[in-house]
């Protein structure tokens, strides 16, 4: 299990690096799909089977198809960042700042005092069943608000992408 996790982490991190440093957005999108699959594998190792399935269906399926669709729709023939010289200062400052953020996060996590780990869940209750039970009892109101949010997003996307009617 540990070895499997390490392999998945290596895949996720290397594909993440490739997402950031590819020239063409299409290749970035394809590597991001690899990244999402590796993260879904890590969810499986954490006994979150339902979330892993949703990750593959929603992220690697729906969201990335939307990205690829828009990239093809805009038809960006030229690779990025050839017309202008690359901003060296921007790169240096960006990488320095993000390393600083990472160090800050690591410091915060190392200072945190965690309570003892939880007990094993009751036998016989699968992950999907437990998620469904929590979703439709304790988290019912957020669940319903989510549907309103999705409706608003659909309306907003349609209004923004609509051609102006002359």
């Amino acid at each position, binding site marked *: 299990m540990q070895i499997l996790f390490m392999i998945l982490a290596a895949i996720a991190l290397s594909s993440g690096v490739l997402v950031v440093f590819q020239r063409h957005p299409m290749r970035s999108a394809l590597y991001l799909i690899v990244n999402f699959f590796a993260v879904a594998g890590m969810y499986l190792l954490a006994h979150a089977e339902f979330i892993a399935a949703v990750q593959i269906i929603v992220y690697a399926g729906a969201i990335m198809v939307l990205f690829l669709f828009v990239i093809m729709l805009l038809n960006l023939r030229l690779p990025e960042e050839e017309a202008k010289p690359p901003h060296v200062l921007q790169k240096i400052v960006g990488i320095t700042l993000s390393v600083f953020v990472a160090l800050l996060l690591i410091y915060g*996590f190392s200072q945190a005092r965690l309570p003892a*780990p939880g007990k094993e869940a009751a036998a016989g209750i699968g992950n999907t069943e437990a998620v469904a039970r929590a979703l439709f009892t*304790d988290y019912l109101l*957020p669940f319903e608000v989510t549907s309103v949010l999705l409706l608003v997003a659909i309306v907003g996307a349609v209004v923004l992408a609509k051609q102006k009617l002359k």
Partner: protein
Amino acid sequence: MVVPLEHYLGVSVALFALGVIGVLVRRNVLVILMCVEMMLNAVNLAFIGFADYFKAVDGQMFVFFVMTVAAAEVAVGLALVVAIFRNRATVYVDDLNLLKW
């Protein structure tokens, strides 16, 4: 607890930092949106790690809602990109400086 919590948090921090690099360094707005997705994924990974640590299902609920918000954000964000491209014929954030002081 098969995989310790520290491993999950380490991978999560690394992925988040990679996303920050992408947002700060890249200039294609599509790649910036993808890096935002990667940062959301890193946070989800931390949530799942904690959910596994505490053997509670609440962390998975949060991941569920974060995914929903991410899907809504991508739909609206990409619609904005298409609208901007239609008006300005560019996807590079350097060229979109109309609101800059």
